[in-house]
């Protein structure tokens, strides 16, 4: 029987949740990574390793790795530094992407590092030199309290040198030559603030690609939900029907490009689910209409937040959907979001949720 493994990155370490293919009963292991704040934990389907991007307030940023599903861990930050690139500071590794036999790490200040030896050593791949806004986005006086970084890299499934990077508060950039050159890809996005350059200045919270159609993309933006049907060359807003235009997490259905999930949040300081009622929202028609999914989720006094990497979907025939909250609950659905159960209740504040199916 195959195994379902959910990796949960939290403010106090990484946790591993295990179940079988029914995904009804779960075992929780952890905390791992010595309780370091973990921003994103991912599974490498090719090698079976787990990688966890972390940053200790005392001991700096690094990537933990485990080759035995979390039983033992090692930490490395060798090469994770801007020392040789103009003296920028690397405060954390924000997001990890495993693709084409290597690991890409998005960092703050904004930059991309790669590892080709299973996260033992790293080298700087790009800081997006020459892009509009590049000179200002690492300037401390332009930084919000959470700082700007490069939290997400979306790989092309067939071409290792072709990927997209998100710079917080700036937008999406595409490279087709492994980071040697870049092009902004933000056409059609909305900004509710003045832009010095219309090509950049967009606040992309989460970017996802349909596994069945690489041209189909969705994004949760600071202002609105958007869809692309042309590989991210242009974007169309699909917010109508959602309770708010704001949120962080998003997930695409693994077998149906028209189905997409988001978790709308109040856009003010709270950034929690509206009215204290937990819900995930689903479209089955690429954003023309939305359904509120709440069966099994708390509908009273539930002021839950979910961050950028806080929702994941597995690739089983009937996919399982998982999200983790800023108050330490993990909820799962095995009927495509129609109903939910709480599979972990008292974890530390959750930064990331990823899922792997192991044969």
């Amino acid at each position, binding site marked *: 029987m195959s195994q379902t493994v959910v990796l949960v990155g939290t403010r106090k370490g990484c946790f591993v949740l295990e179940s079988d293919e029914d995904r009804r009963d779960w075992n929780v292991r952890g905390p791992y990574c010595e309780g370091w704040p973990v921003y994103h934990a991912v599974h490498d389907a090719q090698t079976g390793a787990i990688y966890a991007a972390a940053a*200790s*307030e*005392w*001991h*700096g940023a690094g990537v933990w790795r485990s080759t035995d599903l979390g039983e033992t861990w090692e*930490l*490395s930050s*060798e090469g994770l530094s801007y020392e040789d690139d103009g003296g*920028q500071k690397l405060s954390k590794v924000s997001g990890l992407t495993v693709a084409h036999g290597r690991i890409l790490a998005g960092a703050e200040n904004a930059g991309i590092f790669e590892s080709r030896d299973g996260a033992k050593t790293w080298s700087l791949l790009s800081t997006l030199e020459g892009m509009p806004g590049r000179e200002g986005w690492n300037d401390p006086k332009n930084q919000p309290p959470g700082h700007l970084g490069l939290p997400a890299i979306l790989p092309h499934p067939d071409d290792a040198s072709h990927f997209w990077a998100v710079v917080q508060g700036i937008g999406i950039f595409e490279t087709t030559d492994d980071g040697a050159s870049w092009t902004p890809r933000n056409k059609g996005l909305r900004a509710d603030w003045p832009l010095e350059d219309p090509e950049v200045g967009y606040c992309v919270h989460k970017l996802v690609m349909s596994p069945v159609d690489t041209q189909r993309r969705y994004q949760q933006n600071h202002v609105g939900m958007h869809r692309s049907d042309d590989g991210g060359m242009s974007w169309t807003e699909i917010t109508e029907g959602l309770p708010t235009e704001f949120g962080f997490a998003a997930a695409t259905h693994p077998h149906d490009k028209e189905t997409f999930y988001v978790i709308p949040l109040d856009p003010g300081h709270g950034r929690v689910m509206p009215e204290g009622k937990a819900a995930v929202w689903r479209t089955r028609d690429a954003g023309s209409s939305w359904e509120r999914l709440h069966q099994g989720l708390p509908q009273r006094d539930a002021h839950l937040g979910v961050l950028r990497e806080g929702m994941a979907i597995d690739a089983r025939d009937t996919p399982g959907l998982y999200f983790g909250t800023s108050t330490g609950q993990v909820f799962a659905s095995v009927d495509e979001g129609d109903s939910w159960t709480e599979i972990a209740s008292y974890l530390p504040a959750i930064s990331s949720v990823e899922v792997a199916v192991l044969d």
Partner: protein
Amino acid sequence: MADLHLPGTLPPLFNGLPRRLDVDATTVDEAIAQLDERWPGLRDRLCAEGPTLRPHIHVYVDRERAGLDTELAASSRIDVIAAISGG
């Protein structure tokens, strides 16, 4: 030999690293470099780009706040402290 004391957050990261050890070094920087030779990567856990001590890593030499270039005597006591970082 200077008497070096490390915070409890470090030994779990490096196989065989004790909380307390003797070092034969003339500066704090040199002491950290010696540790990094025996436990590769340890310098990164204490120092940031610059190089400089990480903001919440405080070093005291003979009870006085020290930096990387602080000189050590043969009888010095070095305390490396993981300082306040919140809850």
